């Protein structure tokens, strides 16, 4: 029980990742695949954000006025870990960029074959 409570964020992220991964592999519709891709990437972001979390008196990674002006020494445990947040900002951008390209390719295919189902497109190519 302790094992689950202490890490439930990680468990949920694994479930989400599995959902996304399954959709990417098993779904036949291109848009559904893209949706799965989005879920997959978001799950990874959730994982990183969970790494950054600190229990206790930690707050947002923005220095308060007193700290910023050197009123007292800053302790690292006082703020969340900023590095995973930074990495995830980049990852979100990457995911939206991938989404754009994927949708563009899907639309290209729809213009040519008038369907979004993968097997029908395969049939049309042959």
């Amino acid at each position, binding site marked *: 029980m302790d094992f689950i409570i202490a890490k439930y964020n990680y468990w949920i992220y694994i479930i989400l990742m599995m959902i996304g991964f399954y959709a*990417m592999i098993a779904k036949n519709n291109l848009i559904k695949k893209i949706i799965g891709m989005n879920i997959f990437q978001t799950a*990874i972001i959730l994982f990183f954000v969970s*790494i950054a979390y600190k229990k206790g008196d930690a707050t947002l990674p923005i220095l308060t006025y007193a700290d910023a002006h050197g009123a007292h020494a800053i302790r690292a445990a006082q703020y969340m870990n900023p590095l*995973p947040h930074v990495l995830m900002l980049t990852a979100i951008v990457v995911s939206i960029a991938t989404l754009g*390209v994927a949708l563009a*390719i899907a639309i290209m*295919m729809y213009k040519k074959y008038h369907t979004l189902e993968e097997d029908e497109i395969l049939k049309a*190519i042959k």
Partner: protein
Amino acid sequence: MILEQAPILIVVIPLMSAIVTPLLGWWKRDLCYPWVILSLLFSTLCSVIVLNTVMHDGVIHYYLGGWLPPWGIEYVVDHLNAMMLVLVSGSSLLVAVYSRKSLETELPDRIVYFYTLFLLQVTGFLGIVITGDLFNLFVFLEIAALSGYALIATGEDGAPLASFRYLILGTVGACFYLLGVGYLYMITGSLNMADLAEILPGLYDSKVVLVAFSFFMVGIALKMALFPLHMWLPDAYTKAPSVASALIAPLMTKIAVYVMIRIMFTVFRPYFSIELLPVTKIMLYAGIMAIFVGAVMALAQKDFKRMLCYVVIAEVGYMVGGVGIANAVAIKGAILHIMNDVVMTLGLFAVAGILTYKMKNHEIVAFKHIFKKMPFTMAAFLVVALSVIGVPPTCGFFSKWYLIQGSVMAGNWTFVVALLFSSLVNIVLFFRIIETGYYDFDPAGSEHTHEENIVVNEAPLSMLIPTFVVAVAIILIGLYNQSILINIIQFAVPKL
């Protein structure tokens, strides 16, 4: 100053010229081609400078933004890096020179944006190779991947679907890589490769490290199309425009192999990847399977480019198997084979591009009388083919020699058999083309074509010169392989 700043200039010059290219194309479209060549020339120059510096002074560290490594991003250039940089920038320069005529027939209305993405692709490759930071590698991996998807999707009928499948699997690969980064970060708190290499040995028995390592491996195997995960490659590279396949096919898989070597031997110690885990065994068998499957599938193809794709899969098997044997000689052979394979695959796809340009088709059946029509192209092709088969003066022989030597030393005869089998199949493959193209073998042939009717119809010079440069490079690398080994690769081989 150029000397100090050369590592960053290698990446930033193609990057900035990629940004300027759409503006330039807006103004005057014809300027794009010289502009691309110019920027890649500079980039190549810088990478040669870097290689020279590395050979004389050892490893270069470059701190981006002036921040010291574990906090900022660092560029590390050692011998392996520097060799890859020269290879990548040099071969992309050749492809850029080669690209003009082919693009004008295949994508006449989209040249400007094609060149933009071309430069971005090269930027991505260079960024992957040069960086010393795991997350930075991911970012550049995505740049390379996204521009690759777009370039491939512009190809012939069916290219969008191939590209979409590549996108899905490539994203899975990149996400697995990112997960690996996350697991490593969670357990160590660092992203810098050198820093990780310091911290990790104390944590080798942790399950988190094991999971991270496996996700790295699977993600990169997806990117390099290692045997069970190779489904996306043949379609994507066959249907891409010839310039795109000439750029991506030689470089993407080899860069993935480079990343794999980097992670196995720089981020993790050889002790972990070779002795603690059965990774190398799995890799060895995957490599052997890749060689067999690639060879057999290549035999079954009627399409020239598709056949080359399966050859590429088999060649990936060479390198992965070489690393999988995990002794110094075999890894030396694998690294030398990365170099050779870039050049050879570039030559093969360049020839395929020329044939597509002239014949508007890449079925093998269409290549009749091709030796008469294009003597120079086919001369270059012969050299490349001999190298792929592994005939002594060419470079392909030597890397195979080291691979075989290494596997004999390790007592692994299966790999030897696989290598020999693959060479044999390659002979058959290329002989088939020579047969179609040279001998006027026409089973139905009541109507004997008169040889006078066949006019020499050679490819344009801008395509021919890069192909010849590749052919010459193959022979030169073959002749000077000892000095390359002593001066560069010997330092790149990890200390086992």
